[in-house]
């Protein structure tokens, strides 16, 4: 019974992943590409993906840009406001490793230093198809589950406190 239940839930979740969007200090290039992926040309509503205004309604948080010191507590707050099951996608080179902003005095680094990230989409900015492809491999991974990404929380706490 519970196995069937789980199957049903995963089936429904992979057919309607709602996304919400946060700019953690990006140059707006990746945000424009997310909007382009929702536009008629690359309509990702075909996969049931819709852009939600509220992070409370979303399953996937599309986070762009390197995390600045001011934005890190807010990013964590928005992540904690999402309901389980929740996933984070880091979009763009800055979201993964800091990109051209790495080693800046005001930047902490990638998204995964603050919240656990389950999908990395590199690019500067990524093409809209790359975002759609990333969503596709995330959904495929959900249907055939794999171990969750590792995440050390303690170090970052200190880093934010500084």
């Amino acid at each position: 019974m519970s196995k069937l239940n789980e199957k049903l839930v995963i089936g429904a979740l992979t057919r309607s992943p709602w996304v919400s969007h946060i700019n953690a200090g990006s140059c707006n290039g990746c945000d424009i590409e997310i909007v382009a992926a929702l536009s008629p040309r690359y309509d990702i509503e075909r996969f049931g993906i819709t852009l939600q205004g509220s992070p409370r309604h979303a399953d996937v948080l599309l986070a762009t840009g390197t995390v600045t010191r001011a934005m890190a507590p807010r990013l964590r707050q928005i992540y904690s406001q999402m309901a389980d099951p929740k996933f984070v996608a880091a979009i763009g080179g800055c979201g993964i490793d800091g990109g051209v902003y790495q080693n800046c005095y005001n930047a902490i680094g990638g998204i995964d230093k603050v919240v656990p990230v389950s999908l990395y989409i590199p690019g500067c900015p990524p093409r809209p198809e790359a975002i759609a492809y990333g969503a596709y491999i995330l959904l495929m991974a959900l249907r055939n589950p794999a171990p969750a990404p590792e995440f050390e929380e303690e170090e970052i706490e200190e880093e934010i406190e500084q």
Partner: protein
Amino acid sequence: MSIMGYFAAMREAFRNIVKKPDTIMFPAEHVPIPPGMRGAPVLVPENCTLCNRCIRVCPTWALSIEKIDKNSGYFTVDLGRCCYCQECEKACPFDAIHLQAEQWLTAGLSRDAIKKTDLVVKPKKEAKS
């Protein structure tokens, strides 16, 4: 918005119901990529001589070489750091690294999935005759 503009929008909406949509059905068909597009950097291991010139010009430390011995090493391209500026391609005198237009399907579930490592073995110099 004028009344005539509103009528034009109505006509377009009615036409779109009958028409085939403009959407590219992504996994089945692709948008044509323009030839100047800067995709992911791809190494050609046969041409590489491990000369470190690309590493010196890379602004975001996306490339790295881990030498095994004098003539061979691992060349890593970290797509998470790359900013697709084409400096490495310009700096390489041996045409060993290219930003390929086709390489845009780059997404991974972990950091290691978006790193590409190639084994480079320097070709032995032929004795001058």
